[in-house]
């Protein structure tokens, strides 16, 4: 293991760094934890959304009369009677809202599964039946949902980073290279498919709007509702105590907005829960990508030319960039270096952030191409990557805040037994199976965003932390308990962390792998100041002593650097080329992901990310039917995520890598686990069979069609 200088004054023997079971764990294993749709409300009405059955056109009519006569039906909201919303703003994350959430504002249908009405009734059964019975007529228009490389209407788009970066003469360098890889890679439309459907209950209570929701940031959603409904910020409260997974999909969506509209119209609490099928068109997804990677290297594998272009689709109503070309801007330098993210607008639902947006599909293409280059150069894939480690950000020129990728590879190679690997493909057999191993590198930005927190010392000697953080399964509640305990220099048992309430003030969302880092910073700042203010031996007044923090200034003062978590992924697969079945037999990931706050939950997150990598490599694919423009098989039997049986024992570990510029030393590890994981699996499939699979998922029919050595 490597060692690095310790960070900050809180780095001492304490709670941080020691495994701790989840503080809400008992509630979760006994069923006591209440998620958004679990909280009882008196006089609750139930809303059920009606979605368009055409992919493009206009609504001609919404025949509400028959439905309003059905048992229990209270109202039908649609573009003809819904209140007007304001969507002309830039939200907390620096982007305008996806108009898919701003329901019932006009008669235009931009994609199949667009929300056209909400039926509200006394019971869920009544609402659902009435929603199914509601007749909506459409004027159909021709649609175009055909995503593929080479679309003439594709255009470069910025998103959260510049669309294009470029240096050097790419063609000249490529022409001069001893080894060139020039390949196209594709990844399909993928869905978050978190287990808990989006659900919200809205009600007005004493002039305040309260929304009990499942989301990744209560202040984020509250801020959107304030702006969309033109309300006073103090008039909106969003709560989200437990969240059954988010992965980027749980921001403002049609369910909250339509629930607020209905609760306002009916003056009673209204709950809207999306069905699994509705989630496939209303809650975002990862766009399919078509990528081209060109690599040119010297005889010894040193890169002279690198080009990575990535195309994704977006809707006609919202521009979302899946920046697949992003990883190349961090991972590898070359004399000629060009990266570009492009989008094409189609009559499809809006895509959105999904676990490691850009990095997940981008790393598949880039790290598979690196493996191909290693093969051509006759250089070990790990050695090739080590030879091409950049000293500074290849595009930014900034120094790295830490670059421990080599340490990850060395430790991973040792534990995986990489040194014994025969590089030749297609030569390891076990009965009808072909065996192979593969590796890939991973990286994900480590960011911090301004947050506020409050820490209160209570008279009974305990402490309460209040922060509008979200625990979407990351273990944030537990991590913040440990961070606060160390900052306060008390045992974790004396700290209670309350999260998921917009009344706690602005805070970073659970996203961008920046939640724990951002929140820990704010909690540490408030807790340390509180500790300074507590007089030893003096009694705490009955109302307690509260200190608030705001990290805006501190984070704004950070020196610009390339800040990333890194990792090395290893996979072993068995391929049955007679049936096309691919099984991952073992997987190892070693990461440099900052200081590890809670080893127990950190390992779970990394393993979870790697599991996503297996799922992405072998199973996940939403199929869009060109004739209808909708998805084929939009449910969890049609959209395959990995099951227990697909996932072997996975090892995840880390090297010492605290961030010197973070008060706790945290970087972030919610997403880096998936990065490179699919490439490691695909590279292992090549090593097993000798066949490169450049389109995901590596389905049995693809393996069968590709053939392979006779067994």
């Amino acid at each position, binding site marked *: 293991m490597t060692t690095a200088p310790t960070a900050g004054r809180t780095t001492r023997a304490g709670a941080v760094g020691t495994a701790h079971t989840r503080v809400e764990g008992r509630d979760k294993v006994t069923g006591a934890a209440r998620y958004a749709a679990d909280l009882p409300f008196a006089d609750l009405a139930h809303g059920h959304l009606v979605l368009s059955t055409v992919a493009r056109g206009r609504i001609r009519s919404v025949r509400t009369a028959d439905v309003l006569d059905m048992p229990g039906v209270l109202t039908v909201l649609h573009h003809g009677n819904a209140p007007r919303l304001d969507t002309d703003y830039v939200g907390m994350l620096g982007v305008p809202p996806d108009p898919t959430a701003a329901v019932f504002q006009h008669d235009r249908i931009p994609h199949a599964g667009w929300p056209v009405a909400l039926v509200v009734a006394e019971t869920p059964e009544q609402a659902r039946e009435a929603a199914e019975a509601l007749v909506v007529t459409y004027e159909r228009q021709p649609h175009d949902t055909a995503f593929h490389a080479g679309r003439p209407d594709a255009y470069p788009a910025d998103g959260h980073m510049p669309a294009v970066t470029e240096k050097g003469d790419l063609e000249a360098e490529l022409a001069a290279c001893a080894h060139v890889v020039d390949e196209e890679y594709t990844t399909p439309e993928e869905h978050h498919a978190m287990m808990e459907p989006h659900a919200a209950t809205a009600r007005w209570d004493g002039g305040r709007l309260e929304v009990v929701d499942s989301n990744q940031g209560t202040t984020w959603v509250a801020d959107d509702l304030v702006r969309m409904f033109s309300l006073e910020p103090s008039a909106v409260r969003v709560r989200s105590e437990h969240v059954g997974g988010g992965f980027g999909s749980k921001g403002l969506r049609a369910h909250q907005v339509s629930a607020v509209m209905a609760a306002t119209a009916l003056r009673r609490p209204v709950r809207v829960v999306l069905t699994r099928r509705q989630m496939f068109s209303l809650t975002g997804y990862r766009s399919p990508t078509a990528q081209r990677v060109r690599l040119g290297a010297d005889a010894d594998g040193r890169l002279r030319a690198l080009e990575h272009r990535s195309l994704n689709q977006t809707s006609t109503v919202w521009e979302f960039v899946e920046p697949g070309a992003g990883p190349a801007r961090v991972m590898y330098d070359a004399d000629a270096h060009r990266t570009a993210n492009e989008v094409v607008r189609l009559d499809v639902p809006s895509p959105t952030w999904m676990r490691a947006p850009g990095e997940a599909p981008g790393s598949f293409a880039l790290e598979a191409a690196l493996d191909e280059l290693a093969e051509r150069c006759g250089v070990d894939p790990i050695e090739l990557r080590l030879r091409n480690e950049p000293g500074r950000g290849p595009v930014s020129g900034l120094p790295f805040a830490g670059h421990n990728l080599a340490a990850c590879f060395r430790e991973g190679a040792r534990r995986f037994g990489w040194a014994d690997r025969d590089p030749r493909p297609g030569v390891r057999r076990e009965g009808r199976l072909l065996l192979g191993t593969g590796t890939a590198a991973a990286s994900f930005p480590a960011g911090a965003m301004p947050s506020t927190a409050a820490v209160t010392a209570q008279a009974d000697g305990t402490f309460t932390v209040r922060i509008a953080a979200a625990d979407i399964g990351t273990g944030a509640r537990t991590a913040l308990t440990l961070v606060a305990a160390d900052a306060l220099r008390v045992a974790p048992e004396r700290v209670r962390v309350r999260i998921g309430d917009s009344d706690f003030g602005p805070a970073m969302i659970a996203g961008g792998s920046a939640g724990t880092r951002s929140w820990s910073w704010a909690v540490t700042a408030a807790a340390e100041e509180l500790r300074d203010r507590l007089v030893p031996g003096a009694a705490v007044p009955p109302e307690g002593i509260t200190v608030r923090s705001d990290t805006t200034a501190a984070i704004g003062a950070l020196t610009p650097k390339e800040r990333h978590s890194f990792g090395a992924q290893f996979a072993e697969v068995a391929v049955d080329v007679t049936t096309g079945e691919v099984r991952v037999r073992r997987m190892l990931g070693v990461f440099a992901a900052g200081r590890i706050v809670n080893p127990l939950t950190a390992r779970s997150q990394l393993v979870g990310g790697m599991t996503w990598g297996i799922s992405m490599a072998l199973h996940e694919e939403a199929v869009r039917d060109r004739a209808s423009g909708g998805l*084929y098989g*939009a449910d969890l039997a049609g959209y395959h995520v990995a*099951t227990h049986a697909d996932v072997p024992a996975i090892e995840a570990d880390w090297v010492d890598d605290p961030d010197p510029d973070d008060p706790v030393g945290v970087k972030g590890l919610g997403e880096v686990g998936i990065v490179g994981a699919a490439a490691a699996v695909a590279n292992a499939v090549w090593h097993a069979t000798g066949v490169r699979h450049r389109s995901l998922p590596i389905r049995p029919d693809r393996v069968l069609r590709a053939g392979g050595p006779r067994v």
Partner: protein
Amino acid sequence: MREFAYRRADDVPGAVALLGGDPDARYLGGGTNLVDLMKTGVERPARLVDVRRLPLDRIEPTDDGGLRIGATATNSDLAAHPEVRRRYPALAQAVLAGASGQLRNMATVGGNLLQRTRCGYFTDVTAPCNKRAPGSGCPAVSGEHRNHAVLGASDHCVAVHPSDMGVALAAFDAVVSYETADGPGELPLDGLYLPVGDTPHRETALPAGALVTGVTLPPAPVAARSRYRKVRERASYAFAIGSVAAALDVSNGVVREARLAFGAVASRPWRARTAERVLTGAPAAEEYFAAAADAELAAARPLPDNGYKVTLMRNLVVAVLSELAEEAAR
């Protein structure tokens, strides 16, 4: 889901009488398929007759060495039954390869045979589908058909039957018994499912209002050495993209008797009689297994995106028969 009336039947004649041949009524077994279809709007019955508690859940060896399986026996009970595992191991394996532990606890044998296709156009009420809405068309032929039929399909429908259990039952000459208001009847499993033709909405030869009461497996000593192998797009909890139920009796290196049935390639469990004929009397060797598979698959009519199933089935037949032959030689 529309509102519906519900009655629980106490005995078989009572169940048949309660249904009364009403086209808007359905028998409710385990509900694993019907309730789902009601939620998606594919089925909109006005009445349900619950047959789950009928005394039809027994699994009994017959005197001649066969097996009589009640229609309301659950998949789990069938797969766990010692006589099933002893006499027809491929049947136990097929059942275990289907669905999940939870669904197998609920699903009944009768319901399994009568379950509907999982074709994504059939289950999406906004899509055309000749099986669900006769005459509306089949989008799968020119659309998404990677997991659709290569045998026995027509231009009107290329959906596959999703059952695993049925594949093994087909291999072992199962006979389905049923009850109607006019008395009991029987159909060989092979004859239970109608050809697709231009009437894919007509799926079985059961008389209207008939209640499946059980399945009888005739004695089949060959089944003692049998195997079910299923391929799917993930390791578990998914429908097959191809499967084989096979039994082999080998003596002195020669096949004396073979049973072979395919799953996920046709609108019904596909008994591979052509392949069986080729195998009988042939040497128990890979090349003959392949020839038998090729003979059966000569009738395959793949679409642009499901031709891999022909390769898959050929490979599966060779693999499974080779394993059984090896076992026999031990």
